[in-house]
Protein backbone atom coordinates (compact mmCIF):
# COMPACT_ATOMS: atom_id res chain seq x y z
CA UNK A 1 0.00 0.00 0.00
CA UNK A 2 3.02 2.29 -0.10
CA UNK A 3 1.95 3.67 -3.49
CA UNK A 4 -0.88 5.51 -1.77
CA UNK A 5 1.60 7.43 0.35
CA UNK A 6 3.86 7.98 -2.70
CA UNK A 7 0.99 9.35 -4.74
CA UNK A 8 -0.07 11.57 -1.87
CA UNK A 9 3.49 12.86 -1.49
CA UNK A 10 3.90 13.55 -5.22
CA UNK A 11 0.64 15.46 -5.29
CA UNK A 12 1.78 17.65 -2.42
CA UNK A 13 5.30 18.09 -3.79
CA UNK A 14 4.00 19.11 -7.21
CA UNK A 15 1.18 21.28 -5.77
CA UNK A 16 -1.52 19.28 -7.57
CA UNK A 17 -5.08 20.08 -6.58
CA UNK A 18 -6.74 17.64 -8.96
CA UNK A 19 -5.74 14.51 -10.84
CA UNK A 20 -8.18 12.51 -12.95
CA UNK A 21 -7.21 9.43 -14.92
CA UNK A 22 -9.65 7.44 -17.01
CA UNK A 23 -12.39 7.85 -19.53
CA UNK A 24 -13.41 11.38 -20.52
CA UNK A 25 -17.01 12.35 -21.24
CA UNK A 26 -19.06 15.52 -21.03
CA UNK A 27 -20.35 14.39 -17.61
CA UNK A 28 -16.80 13.92 -16.32
CA UNK A 29 -15.85 17.29 -17.82
CA UNK A 30 -18.66 18.98 -15.90
CA UNK A 31 -17.64 17.29 -12.64
CA UNK A 32 -13.97 18.17 -13.03
CA UNK A 33 -14.90 21.77 -13.83
CA UNK A 34 -17.20 22.18 -10.87
CA UNK A 35 -14.68 20.58 -8.46
CA UNK A 36 -11.95 22.96 -9.58
CA UNK A 37 -14.31 25.92 -9.52
CA UNK A 38 -15.33 25.10 -5.97
CA UNK A 39 -11.69 24.75 -4.99
CA UNK A 40 -10.83 28.16 -6.44
CA UNK A 41 -13.96 29.64 -4.86
CA UNK A 42 -13.06 28.39 -1.40
CA UNK A 43 -9.52 29.75 -1.76
CA UNK A 44 -10.98 33.16 -2.63
CA UNK A 45 -9.36 33.24 -6.05
CA UNK A 46 -9.85 36.39 -8.14
CA UNK A 47 -12.70 36.13 -10.61
CA UNK A 48 -10.60 37.06 -13.66
CA UNK A 49 -8.12 34.27 -12.84
CA UNK A 50 -10.96 31.82 -12.18
CA UNK A 51 -12.43 32.59 -15.58
CA UNK A 52 -9.13 32.05 -17.38
CA UNK A 53 -8.49 28.74 -15.62
CA UNK A 54 -12.05 27.62 -16.38
CA UNK A 55 -11.60 28.60 -20.01
CA UNK A 56 -8.34 26.71 -20.50
CA UNK A 57 -9.76 23.67 -18.67
CA UNK A 58 -12.85 23.49 -20.89
CA UNK A 59 -10.87 23.57 -24.12
CA UNK A 60 -8.40 21.05 -22.78
CA UNK A 61 -11.08 18.64 -21.49
CA UNK A 62 -13.25 18.89 -24.59
CA UNK A 63 -10.20 18.27 -26.76
CA UNK A 64 -9.63 15.01 -24.90
CA UNK A 65 -13.33 14.06 -25.11
CA UNK A 66 -13.38 14.60 -28.87
CA UNK A 67 -10.17 12.75 -29.58
CA UNK A 68 -10.65 9.97 -27.05
CA UNK A 69 -13.13 8.33 -29.40
CA UNK A 70 -10.44 7.63 -31.94
CA UNK A 71 -9.68 4.02 -31.23
CA UNK A 72 -6.03 3.33 -30.77
CA UNK A 73 -4.97 -0.25 -31.11
CA UNK A 74 -2.77 -1.72 -28.41
CA UNK A 75 -2.83 1.46 -26.33
CA UNK A 76 -5.06 2.20 -23.37
CA UNK A 77 -7.85 4.51 -24.44
CA UNK A 78 -7.64 6.63 -21.32
CA UNK A 79 -6.25 10.03 -20.59
CA UNK A 80 -5.05 12.05 -17.64
CA UNK A 81 -5.98 15.55 -16.59
CA UNK A 82 -4.14 17.47 -13.88
CA UNK A 83 -4.55 20.87 -12.29
CA UNK A 84 -1.69 22.27 -10.25
CA UNK A 85 -1.74 25.40 -8.17
CA UNK A 86 1.34 27.29 -7.09
CA UNK A 87 1.75 30.68 -5.45
CA UNK A 88 2.32 32.34 -8.78
CA UNK A 89 0.30 30.25 -11.27
CA UNK A 90 -2.13 27.49 -12.13
CA UNK A 91 -0.80 24.71 -14.34
CA UNK A 92 -3.34 22.80 -16.42
CA UNK A 93 -2.00 19.60 -17.92
CA UNK A 94 -3.49 16.88 -20.06
CA UNK A 95 -2.03 13.66 -21.39
CA UNK A 96 -3.47 11.19 -23.85
CA UNK A 97 -2.27 8.55 -26.28
CA UNK A 98 -2.17 9.53 -29.95
CA UNK A 99 -1.19 7.82 -33.19
CA UNK A 100 2.31 8.67 -34.36
CA UNK A 101 1.05 9.74 -37.77
CA UNK A 102 -0.72 12.67 -36.10
CA UNK A 103 2.36 14.05 -34.39
CA UNK A 104 3.71 16.10 -37.30
CA UNK A 105 0.46 18.01 -37.86
CA UNK A 106 -0.15 18.52 -34.15
CA UNK A 107 3.33 19.87 -33.43
CA UNK A 108 3.21 22.10 -36.49
CA UNK A 109 -0.06 23.58 -35.23
CA UNK A 110 1.30 24.12 -31.72
CA UNK A 111 4.57 25.61 -33.01
CA UNK A 112 2.63 27.98 -35.23
CA UNK A 113 0.57 29.15 -32.24
CA UNK A 114 3.63 29.46 -30.01
CA UNK A 115 5.35 31.57 -32.64
CA UNK A 116 2.62 34.22 -32.59
CA UNK A 117 2.23 37.26 -30.35
CA UNK A 118 -1.09 38.57 -28.99
CA UNK A 119 -2.03 40.31 -32.24
CA UNK A 120 -0.97 37.33 -34.35
CA UNK A 121 -3.13 35.00 -32.25
CA UNK A 122 -6.10 37.32 -32.61
CA UNK A 123 -5.70 37.32 -36.39
CA UNK A 124 -5.36 33.55 -36.52
CA UNK A 125 -8.48 33.20 -34.38
CA UNK A 126 -10.47 35.43 -36.73
CA UNK A 127 -9.16 33.66 -39.79
CA UNK A 128 -10.14 30.23 -38.44
CA UNK A 129 -13.57 31.26 -37.17
CA UNK A 130 -14.37 32.91 -40.49
CA UNK A 131 -13.20 30.13 -42.78
CA UNK A 132 -13.61 26.85 -40.94
CA UNK A 133 -16.67 24.67 -40.55
CA UNK A 134 -17.17 22.62 -37.40
CA UNK A 135 -15.58 19.20 -37.75
CA UNK A 136 -17.64 16.02 -37.49
CA UNK A 137 -16.58 15.81 -33.86
CA UNK A 138 -17.80 19.35 -33.31
CA UNK A 139 -14.39 20.96 -32.99
CA UNK A 140 -13.87 24.45 -34.33
CA UNK A 141 -10.08 24.10 -34.58
CA UNK A 142 -9.82 27.01 -32.19
CA UNK A 143 -9.10 25.24 -28.90
CA UNK A 144 -5.32 25.61 -28.82
CA UNK A 145 -5.47 29.19 -30.12
CA UNK A 146 -7.93 30.06 -27.39
CA UNK A 147 -5.82 28.39 -24.69
CA UNK A 148 -2.81 30.43 -25.80
CA UNK A 149 -4.82 33.64 -25.92
CA UNK A 150 -6.56 33.27 -22.58
CA UNK A 151 -3.44 32.13 -20.73
CA UNK A 152 -1.19 34.66 -22.44
CA UNK A 153 1.56 32.02 -22.35
CA UNK A 154 3.18 29.47 -24.63
CA UNK A 155 1.67 25.98 -24.77
CA UNK A 156 4.25 23.46 -23.62
CA UNK A 157 4.01 20.00 -25.12
CA UNK A 158 5.76 16.69 -25.40
CA UNK A 159 5.38 13.37 -27.23
CA UNK A 160 6.60 10.32 -25.37
CA UNK A 161 6.97 7.16 -27.50
CA UNK A 162 4.82 4.29 -26.21
CA UNK A 163 4.67 1.68 -28.98
CA UNK A 164 5.77 1.60 -32.61
CA UNK A 165 2.54 3.26 -33.61
CA UNK A 166 1.61 5.40 -30.64
CA UNK A 167 2.92 8.10 -28.36
CA UNK A 168 1.71 9.86 -25.27
CA UNK A 169 0.89 13.51 -25.90
CA UNK A 170 1.28 15.86 -22.94
CA UNK A 171 0.13 19.46 -23.05
CA UNK A 172 0.68 22.06 -20.37
CA UNK A 173 -0.82 25.54 -20.07
CA UNK A 174 0.00 28.04 -17.35
CA UNK A 175 -2.30 30.74 -16.04
CA UNK A 176 -0.50 33.40 -14.05
CA UNK A 177 -1.99 34.42 -10.68
CA UNK A 178 -0.07 37.68 -10.72
CA UNK A 179 -2.35 40.35 -12.17
CA UNK A 180 -0.86 42.13 -15.12
CA UNK A 181 2.01 39.69 -15.45
CA UNK A 182 0.82 38.13 -18.68
CA UNK A 183 3.12 38.23 -21.68
Amino acid sequence: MKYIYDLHRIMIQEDLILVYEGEFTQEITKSVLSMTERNMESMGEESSIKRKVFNVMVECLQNICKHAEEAIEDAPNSAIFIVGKRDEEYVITSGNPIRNDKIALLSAKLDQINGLDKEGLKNLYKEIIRNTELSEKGGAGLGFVDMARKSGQKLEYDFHPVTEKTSFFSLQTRVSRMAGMEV
Partner: protein
Amino acid sequence: MEIINLEGAEDTPKIILDKSNGIFEISGRSLPEDTAEFYRPILDWLSRYAQTPNSKTQFTFKLEYFNTASSKLILDILAKLEAIPGTTVEWYFHEDDEDMEEAGGEFSELVEVPFDFKAY
Protein backbone atom coordinates in the same frame (compact mmCIF):
# COMPACT_ATOMS: atom_id res chain seq x y z
CA MET B 1 -44.30 32.35 -34.13
CA GLU B 2 -43.66 29.85 -31.38
CA ILE B 3 -41.58 31.00 -28.44
CA ILE B 4 -38.26 29.36 -27.69
CA ASN B 5 -37.60 29.35 -23.99
CA LEU B 6 -34.72 27.17 -22.83
CA GLU B 7 -33.74 26.93 -19.20
CA GLY B 8 -30.02 27.33 -18.76
CA ALA B 9 -27.92 24.51 -17.33
CA GLU B 10 -24.32 24.29 -16.16
CA ASP B 11 -23.16 23.68 -19.73
CA THR B 12 -25.92 25.25 -21.83
CA PRO B 13 -27.18 28.84 -21.97
CA LYS B 14 -30.60 30.21 -21.20
CA ILE B 15 -32.27 31.24 -24.45
CA ILE B 16 -35.44 33.22 -25.05
CA LEU B 17 -36.67 33.98 -28.56
CA ASP B 18 -40.06 35.65 -28.39
CA LYS B 19 -41.15 37.56 -31.47
CA SER B 20 -44.40 39.03 -30.14
CA ASN B 21 -42.78 40.45 -27.01
CA GLY B 22 -39.61 41.41 -28.87
CA ILE B 23 -37.29 39.44 -26.58
CA PHE B 24 -34.23 37.81 -28.08
CA GLU B 25 -31.66 36.77 -25.52
CA ILE B 26 -28.87 34.27 -24.91
CA SER B 27 -27.28 34.25 -21.47
CA GLY B 28 -25.22 32.12 -19.12
CA ARG B 29 -22.69 29.47 -20.05
CA SER B 30 -22.29 27.73 -23.37
CA LEU B 31 -20.16 24.61 -23.57
CA PRO B 32 -22.57 21.93 -24.79
CA GLU B 33 -21.33 18.49 -25.75
CA ASP B 34 -22.65 18.86 -29.28
CA THR B 35 -22.72 22.55 -30.08
CA ALA B 36 -24.10 22.28 -33.62
CA GLU B 37 -26.96 20.08 -32.42
CA PHE B 38 -27.76 22.40 -29.52
CA TYR B 39 -27.91 25.55 -31.66
CA ARG B 40 -29.68 24.04 -34.68
CA PRO B 41 -33.23 24.90 -33.44
CA ILE B 42 -32.08 28.44 -32.68
CA LEU B 43 -30.69 28.93 -36.18
CA ASP B 44 -33.81 27.37 -37.72
CA TRP B 45 -36.01 29.69 -35.69
CA LEU B 46 -33.99 32.72 -36.81
CA SER B 47 -34.26 31.66 -40.47
CA ARG B 48 -38.03 31.58 -40.14
CA TYR B 49 -38.09 34.86 -38.18
CA ALA B 50 -35.98 36.50 -40.91
CA GLN B 51 -38.86 36.02 -43.37
CA THR B 52 -41.22 38.28 -41.40
CA PRO B 53 -39.14 40.05 -38.77
CA ASN B 54 -40.26 42.83 -36.42
CA SER B 55 -39.26 46.31 -37.57
CA LYS B 56 -36.64 46.35 -34.84
CA THR B 57 -34.76 43.38 -33.39
CA GLN B 58 -32.60 43.90 -30.33
CA PHE B 59 -30.64 40.73 -29.72
CA THR B 60 -29.00 40.39 -26.32
CA PHE B 61 -25.92 38.30 -25.56
CA LYS B 62 -25.21 38.16 -21.85
CA LEU B 63 -22.78 35.29 -21.69
CA GLU B 64 -20.67 34.44 -18.72
CA TYR B 65 -18.63 31.92 -20.66
CA PHE B 66 -18.63 30.22 -24.05
CA ASN B 67 -16.26 27.63 -25.50
CA THR B 68 -14.62 27.85 -28.92
CA ALA B 69 -17.13 25.52 -30.58
CA SER B 70 -19.91 27.86 -29.36
CA SER B 71 -18.07 30.88 -30.73
CA LYS B 72 -18.44 29.41 -34.20
CA LEU B 73 -22.19 29.05 -33.66
CA ILE B 74 -22.47 32.56 -32.21
CA LEU B 75 -20.96 33.80 -35.45
CA ASP B 76 -23.58 31.78 -37.36
CA ILE B 77 -26.32 33.46 -35.30
CA LEU B 78 -24.81 36.87 -36.00
CA ALA B 79 -24.67 36.06 -39.71
CA LYS B 80 -28.43 35.34 -39.62
CA LEU B 81 -29.03 38.63 -37.78
CA GLU B 82 -26.95 40.49 -40.33
CA ALA B 83 -29.59 39.73 -42.94
CA ILE B 84 -32.44 41.11 -40.79
CA PRO B 85 -32.94 44.87 -41.21
CA GLY B 86 -33.21 46.91 -37.99
CA THR B 87 -31.12 44.51 -35.91
CA THR B 88 -28.87 45.64 -33.10
CA VAL B 89 -26.81 43.49 -30.76
CA GLU B 90 -26.42 44.25 -27.08
CA TRP B 91 -23.25 42.59 -25.86
CA TYR B 92 -23.01 42.38 -22.09
CA PHE B 93 -19.82 41.63 -20.23
CA HIS B 94 -18.93 41.58 -16.56
CA GLU B 95 -17.03 44.76 -15.75
CA ASP B 96 -13.80 42.91 -14.93
CA ASP B 97 -14.11 40.46 -17.84
CA GLU B 98 -11.84 41.91 -20.50
CA ASP B 99 -11.85 38.65 -22.47
CA MET B 100 -15.64 38.76 -22.88
CA GLU B 101 -15.49 42.43 -23.86
CA GLU B 102 -12.78 41.67 -26.41
CA ALA B 103 -14.71 38.68 -27.77
CA GLY B 104 -17.68 40.97 -28.42
CA GLY B 105 -15.41 43.44 -30.15
CA GLU B 106 -14.08 40.72 -32.42
CA PHE B 107 -17.55 39.50 -33.35
CA SER B 108 -18.56 43.06 -34.15
CA GLU B 109 -15.65 43.25 -36.60
CA LEU B 110 -16.74 40.05 -38.32
CA VAL B 111 -20.33 41.05 -39.11
CA GLU B 112 -22.16 44.14 -40.30
CA VAL B 113 -24.46 44.53 -37.31
CA PRO B 114 -24.31 47.48 -34.88
CA PHE B 115 -23.10 46.41 -31.41
CA ASP B 116 -23.82 48.13 -28.09
CA PHE B 117 -21.40 47.14 -25.37
CA LYS B 118 -22.68 47.09 -21.83
CA ALA B 119 -20.71 46.38 -18.68
CA TYR B 120 -22.60 44.95 -15.70
